C-alpha cells in the first residue's frame, strides 16, 4: 500500500510538473529523496577502494534497515575483509535526535555499546563518509536548494546546508526521468573548492523502482576513488523489529 502511495504521489507530482512548469529546486530534491526512500531494505554492497596507482581493496557488507515514524534502525554486517568478517553494527535512531549504537566484536564474542561516533569520518577507509552512506542529498529542512540549470535530461540543483558540517555546498545533477542523482559534487566549507564527486554509473530497476546500482565517489585532492556496487537489493520487505535488537546482533536469532 505504502509503495502504491509513493508511486502515486511521484506520478502525480511528475504529471503536474510536466503539465504546468519547471519544478522548484525544493520539489526536485524532495522527489530525489522520495525516490530513494523505502520503509525497509536489505542491501548487499561491495565497495572497491582504488588508489591513485590503481591498486584496489575490496570491502563487502550487508545491511538491513527499517524506517518507522521517521526513525531508522540499521543493522550492518561486515563480510570482508577477513579481519572484520562478522563484525556487526546496530544503530537505532531514537527520539530527540539521539542514536543508540552497538558493536559486536566477533573476536571477543562481545557486544559493546558505543555512545557517539564521527559521522563525517570515512566509512571503512572509503571515499564515502558515514553520512554519505545514509544519504548524499539534503532534504528541504536541512538546506536551501536552488535550481541552477536545466536541460532536456537533467536538473542541476545547488544545495547550501543550513548548518555547515561536512560540506559547504553540494551540486546535484538530477535525472529528469528517474529523479535519481546522476552526479553530486561536494564542496569544501568555502563553497568553492571541490572535495569529492559522486557519479552514478548504472541505474537498474529493482522491485519496480529505479535504483543507482553502481556509484563512484572520487576524492578530488587524492584521486582516490571508491566504487560502490549494490549486488543485491530488496525493498519494502516485511522486517520484524527483532532484527534490530542486541539479541539478534549477538546470536543471529530473532
Amino acid at each position, binding site marked *: 500500500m505504502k509503495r502504491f502511495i509513493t508511486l502515486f504521489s511521484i506520478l502525480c507530482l511528475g504529471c503536474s510538473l510536466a503539465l504546468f512548469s519547471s519544478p522548484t529546486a525544493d520539489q526536485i530534491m524532495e522527489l530525489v529523496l522520495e525516490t530513494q526512500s523505502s520503509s525497509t531494505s*536489505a542491501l*548487499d554492497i561491495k565497495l572497491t*577502494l582504488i*588508489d591513485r596507482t590503481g591498486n584496489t*581493496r575490496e*570491502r563487502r557488507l*550487508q545491511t*538491513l534497515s527499517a524506517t518507522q515514524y521517521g526513525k531508522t534502525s540499521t543493522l550492518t*554486517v*561486515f563480510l570482508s*575483509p*577477513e*579481519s*572484520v568478517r*562478522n*563484525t*556487526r553494527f546496530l544503530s537505532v535512531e531514537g527520539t530527540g535526535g539521539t542514536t543508540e549504537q*552497538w*558493536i559486536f*566484536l*566477533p*573476536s*571477543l*564474542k*562481545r*557486544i*559493546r*555499546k*558505543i*555512545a*557517539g*561516533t*564521527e559521522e*563525517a*569520518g*570515512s*566509512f*571503512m*577507509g572509503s571515499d564515502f563518509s*558515514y553520512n554519505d552512506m545514509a544519504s548524499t542529498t539534503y532534504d528541504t529542512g536541512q538546506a536551501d536548494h536552488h535550481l541552477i540549470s536545466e536541460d532536456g535530461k537533467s536538473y542541476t540543483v545547488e544545495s547550501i546546508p543550513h548548518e*555547515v558540517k561536512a560540506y559547504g555546498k553540494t551540486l546535484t545533477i538530477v535525472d529528469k526521468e528517474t529523479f535519481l542523482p546522476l552526479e553530486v559534487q561536494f564542496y*569544501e566549507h*568555502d563553497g568553492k573548492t571541490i572535495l569529492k564527486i559522486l557519479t552514478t554509473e548504472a541505474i537498474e530497476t529493482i522491485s519496480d523502482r529505479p535504483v543507482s546500482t553502481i556509484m563512484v565517489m572520487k576524492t578530488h*585532492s*587524492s584521486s582516490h576513488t571508491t566504487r560502490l556496487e549494490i549486488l543485491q537489493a*530488496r525493498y519494502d*520487505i*516485511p522486517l*520484524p*523489529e*527483532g*532484527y534490530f*535488537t*542486541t*539479541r*539478534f546482533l*549477538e546470536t*543471529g*536469532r*530473532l
Partner: protein
Amino acid sequence: MRRHIARSWIIIVVSLLISLICISSIGRLHIDSSTDAFIPKAHPVVTTNEKIEERFGSLDSVVVSLYAPHSILKEEYLEQLTSLTRQIEALDGVKQASSLANLKHMEPSSDGVAVVSLYDGDVGRIEERIASWPSFYEGTFISEDHQVLSILIQTTREYHATLLLANLREILLPLEGLEYSLLGLPAVTEEIERSLLSDLAILAPIVALLIVIVLYFFLRRVAAVLLSLVPLVFSSSLTLGIMAWTGITVTMATMLVPVLLLIVGSAYTIHIFSHFYQEYTGGNVEEILQKVVHTNTYPIIGAAATTAFAFLAQLSSPLGPFRTFGLLSFIGVVACAGSSLILLPALIRVVYQVRVPKPQRASKPHTMRLVRFALKLSNKWGKLTITLFLLMIIVVLPLSYMSLQEGTNMLAFFRPSSSLVKMNNRYNQAMQGSFSLSVMVTPPEGTATLSPEVLKTLERAVETIKEEPTVGGVQSILPFIKRMNQLLGPAEGAIVETVQDEPVFDFFSGPLSTEESTTNPTATKQLESGGKGSYEIPSDPTKYGLSTEEELSHLIAQYLLLYSSSLDSFIDDPLEPDSTLFTILLKESHTETLRLISTKLPTLFPSTWTVEIGGGEAVSLALTDLVTKSQIISLFSSLIAVWILVLFTLRSAKLATLALLPCLYALASVFLAMALFSIKLDIITSLIAALSIGIGVDYAIHLLSAFMRNKHSLEEILMTTGKAILANAASVAIGFSGLLFSRFLPIANLGLLFCIAMISASSAALLLLVALQVHLPKLFNTSRRKS
C-alpha cells in the same frame, strides 16, 4: 674621433636599454626561499616524501601555539580555542585542525564506550579527561604545566602557504589574554622569503655604498666613481634580467649573484680608471684610452677568466641552484669584464671629450708600509714564513676541514635573537618539539601490519628512539590501539566465552523471517562496562580467548573499524594497512642527531622490512649531505679549472701549482675560522671555497706574472704589483663586509669568511710567494723565464 664618439653613444644607449629592460622585469622574478628548492627532484628523500604524502596526506603542518601566564584550562581561554579551531578548520588549504576544543575523547561507560567531545564546556571534566590519558594529550595538545595549548593544522597537499599564514594571523589578531606563535616549516619558509626580500633591499645599497667608498678611495673623483658604477650595475641587472626572462628561481644562492658582481667587477673598473689617470698627462684622450684598454685587456680577461671558470666549476655540483649560481656568476663576470673594457671606455670617451680632471692626491697610503713589511719578513724570516704557511696548508687545512660542522636546518639561518628562533625555543621547551622525522614502516608482503608481532616491534623501536635526549615524543598508531584495547578488551583474568556456533549472517541466501521476536524486542542484554581491559598491545592470544596471533590481529582490526576515520595519518588503510607511519618529534635539529636517528632506525626493524624516512628534517639531512658532497666536488673542480687556466696563462705546471698555494692557504684560514667560530657548512657557506679560489688566485697570477717578466727588482714588484694586490684585496674584502649586515646568519658568515679569504689569499701571495722567490728561486725557473 667623431666616429669613436658616435660608436660610444651607441654602446651606452644599447647598454642602458638592456639594463632598463632587465630592471623592469624584476617583477617577474620567482622567489623560492625554501631549502626544498635545492633538493634534486629525483632525490630518494623527495620520492619518499611523495610516497608518504600520497598514502598519509600532506607532511606540511602548521602549529598555532597559545600561551597563558598561568593555567590555560580556563573557560575564557578554552572558548577562544574553540572559536579559533572552528575558524581555522574553515580556512582554505586546511585539511584538518586539531586541538583540545574539537578532539573526540573515548571513555568507558557503564555498558561500553562513550565517544564524547573532549571539551564540552566543563573545565573540570576536560582536566579529568586529560588526566585519564596524559601520554596522548600532554606534550602534543597541551604542555605538562598546562600553560601552552597548540592547534595542529594539517594542510591539504596543494595549498597556498602565504595565504594560509596571512589568514591565520588575521584570525589570531583579536586574541585576548593569550600570546600566540606560528610554527612549522611553512612559517619558517615564509619568514626566510620575507627576510630574503628585505635582505636584497638592504644589502644591495650597503654593498653599493661600500663599493662607492672603495672606488672613491682609489679614484678620488665623484664623476669617476659614478662612471665606474655603470658597468657594475649593467652586469648585475643583466643577471637579474636573465633570471626573470628565463624563469630561473631566485634562491638563497642565486640572490647573491648581483651583489657578488658589484664586488668582483669593481676591481676591473678600478684597473681601467687608475691606469687611465696614470697614463693621462694631457693631450689626446682617445689615444690614451686606446692604450689603457689595450694594456688592460689581457690582465682583466685573465683575472675574469679564472674567476668565471672557478664559478663555472659549480656546474659539477649535484645541487641545481648551485649550478644555476655558477652559470649566472660566469655570465655576470664575463659581462663585468666585457663592460669594463667596452662600456666604461665608451663612457670615459663621451664624458671626458675635452678635458680629464686629475684626481685629488691621496695621502701616503698605508699599503706602502705593508709592502715594506712583507719584503722585510720574506728576507729576514723567509724560511719560517714558508714553514708556517706550509704547515697551515698541510696540517691545518685537512684538520680544520675534518672538524667542520654541517647543517642546513632552516631555523639556524636566523640569529638566536630573532623572534622566530625565540618562539621555537619556547615551544620546544614546553612541548614535544617542532622538528619532525616521518618514518614509514612496511612489513614484508604476507605479514599483517596490525599483527601483534609487527606492533610489538614498532613499540620497541618507538621506546628506543624515545631514549634519545633530543626526541620530545613519538606519535604513532600504538596509543590508539592500546586505548581501544583498554576500553573494549576483556578485564584482566576475565573468562572469554568460547566459540559457539557462529551465526551466519546472509540476508540474501533465503527469505528473511517475517515472524515477530518471541522476546521483547526493546529489551536489551545487560552489557559489561567498558574500560576494564589493559592499556597494551594485545599479544597473548590466550588472554583474549583466542588461539593464534592472526586472530589477535583481527581483533585489532575490529577495534579500528570504529576509529577508521581518525587514523589515516598513521595507517594507509584502516582495516588492512600495508604500511604504518610514525612521527618523531625533535626539540633540536642537529645534523649529528638526525644522522644518528636515521642510521639507528633501520636497525630497529627486521632486515626484511622497509623503513623509509621522510619529513622536513630528512630533507634537511639529505641536503646537508648533498651540500658537503657539492662542496668537495666544486672545490676540486675549481682547483683543476684554475690550475689549467693558470697553466695556459703562465705556461708552466710548476707555476700553476705555486699559484694555488695562496688559494689553499686562504682555504685553510677559512676552514679554521669556521671551526673556531662554529660556523656550519651550509647551502651558503659551502660556496666560499670555490669562490675564494676563483677570486684569490688572481693575486698569485699577478705576482707570478711580474716575476716572469723579470724586468724589475723584487722591491719594485712589491711596490707596484704588491700594492695593487693589497688594494684589490682590500676593496673586495670591504665589499663583502657589507654582507655582515644580512639578517641571514649564513650570508653574514659568508661575508666574514670572504673577508678572511681575501686577506689570507693576498697575504699568502705577498709573503709566501715572495719568501719562496727569495729562498727557493729555483722553483720559479721555467723555460719561459730563462728565455
